[in-house]
């Protein structure tokens, strides 16, 4: 099927789309009812908010967000479910959307006060379940944790991870590389709860622990922070220790991956003896265990896009993500070249469905009548 820019997405996929990066926005007052004291009082009395690091603004029309995603009443983009339904889920025919939070607050990014971070993560999870996951059948969630305290984080994963709509544990990319064995209790908890580990950058200092002079440099180099995490996971043997674990790298695209796989393979051939727990080529580990989101998409021709997938050596590693409502949102039609139907089906739906075992594994067809949900609207009441 030829899909041109501007075409509505109704006919894009019979199954609908799985969007692996949707930023719901929580405001600090929203979390207060879910916090016990003293944590609640530190927000209500002391005005605590989490520190941020970037020295720049996001130099766009409306800062971090799409200018057309702000609510008519002035509330921030992503903070209202009804508006998000209308502008994203309904408009783009999203079958499942994975919530990834606004990264503010981001408990695992806090540079201290890990008890507050732990309390904040629990509050966020309870708020997310009540106000988002249980309000729309299409939305699935991320378990937020304070990963600086891995044992407390594992307890939180065991507490909310069994919720049927929690599909992953979210780790920010900032100044900690998470493959270190110190953090492995988190991965054990994720594995026993059938959850994916997902990483999304927050505000990593990508210049030797500092920030480059310009935002355009920082934004260009985000993929280097993701490369550190992938390398850390592979060579620290995370996937050897947790063979059922999957990792999703969110919002650095996928074009850095062929280079990294080839480089890791070459290093492994020379230096295997330093990491003897690694028993196969890193590229094989990556292909089996790690998935990468599409956004932010570079502009590709159809041929260029196919060439890049050839370099990956797999059509199963890339999952569509919109990053709604952020400014570098990718539209599922306008942001992509035309492609084969079979490839479109994988990137916009099947690859994410295979990644998340807790999503209904029905290929978009009603289990009762076997007709597609798209062609049989009366069956379109899933879960």
């Amino acid at each position, binding site marked *: 099927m030829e899909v*041109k*820019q*501007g075409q509505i997405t109704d006919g894009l996929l019979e199954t609908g789309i799985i969007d692996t990066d949707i930023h719901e926005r929580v405001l600090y007052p929203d979390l207060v009812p879910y916090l016990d004291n003293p944590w609640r009082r530190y927000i209500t009395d002391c005005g605590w908010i989490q520190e941020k690091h970037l020295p720049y603004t996001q*130099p*766009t*029309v*409306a800062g971090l967000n*799409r*200018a*057309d995603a702000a609510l008519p009443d002035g509330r921030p983009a992503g903070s209202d479910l009804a508006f998000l339904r209308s502008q994203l889920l309904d408009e783009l025919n999203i079958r499942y959307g994975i919530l990834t939070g606004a990264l503010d607050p981001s408990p695992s990014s806090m540079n201290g006060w890990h008890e507050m971070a732990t309390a904040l993560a629990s509050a966020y999870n309870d708020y997310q379940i009540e106000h988002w996951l249980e309000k729309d059948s299409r939305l699935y969630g991320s378990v937020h944790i304070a990963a600086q305290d891995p044992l407390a984080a594992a307890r939180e994963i065991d507490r909310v991870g069994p919720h049927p709509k929690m599909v992953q544990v979210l780790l920010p990319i900032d100044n900690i590389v998470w493959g270190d064995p110190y953090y492995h209790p988190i991965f054990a908890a994720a594995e026993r709860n059938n959850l994916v580990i997902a990483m999304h950058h927050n505000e990593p200092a990508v210049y030797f622990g500092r920030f480059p002079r310009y935002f355009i440099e920082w934004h260009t180099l985000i993929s280097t922070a993701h490369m550190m995490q992938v390398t850390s996971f592979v060579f620290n043997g995370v996937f050897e220790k947790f063979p059922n674990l999957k990792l999703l790298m969110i919002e650095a695209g996928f074009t850095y991956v062929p280079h990294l796989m080839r480089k890791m393979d070459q290093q492994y051939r020379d230096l295997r003896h330093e990491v003897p727990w690694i028993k196969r080529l890193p590229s094989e580990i990556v292909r089996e265990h790690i998935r990468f989101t599409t956004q932010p998409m570079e*502009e*590709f*021709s*159809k041929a260029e896009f196919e060439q890049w997938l050839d370099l990956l050596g797999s059509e199963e590693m890339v999952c569509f993500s919109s990053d709604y409502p952020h*400014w*570098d*949102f*990718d*539209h599922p*039609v*306008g*942001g992509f*070249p*035309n492609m084969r139907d079979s490839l479109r089906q994988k990137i916009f739906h099947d690859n994410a469905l295979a990644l998340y075992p807790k999503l209904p594994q029905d290929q978009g067809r009603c289990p009762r009548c076997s007709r597609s949900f798209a062609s049989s609207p009366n069956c379109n009441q899933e879960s």
Partner: protein
Amino acid sequence: MQQVVCKLTELQPGELKEIQFGRISLVIGRTGAGELFAFSNRCIHQGAPLSKGKLCGTSAPTDLPGQYSYVKEGEVLRCPWHGREFDVTAGGQMMSDPRRALGRFQIFVAGEDVVVSTLNKPEKGEVADEQK
């Protein structure tokens, strides 16, 4: 095709407005100096609604790293999503790549009315997926 889209008094200098021109959504506006312009309301990158963007200025090209000079106030249409800049006084050229431009329509004043027209064939901007 020709269509009255609004009164001139309804479109002040520095303003953007979305209008329906037949079946096509257009963004029309006036520069800070009052010059009218009309373009397709779809960004040539990913299709964002340009009427939700901002009519602003930009930093002038310079040979000196670190030098900022804010120019063209009211002449630059910035996309509401990715922030791409289009020069409305230069046919909607994309400022980072002047080979690309927005789809352009004729716009003029007749009496008190603002009129959009395709009587002269609209200059078609490059579309992002032409090479796809």
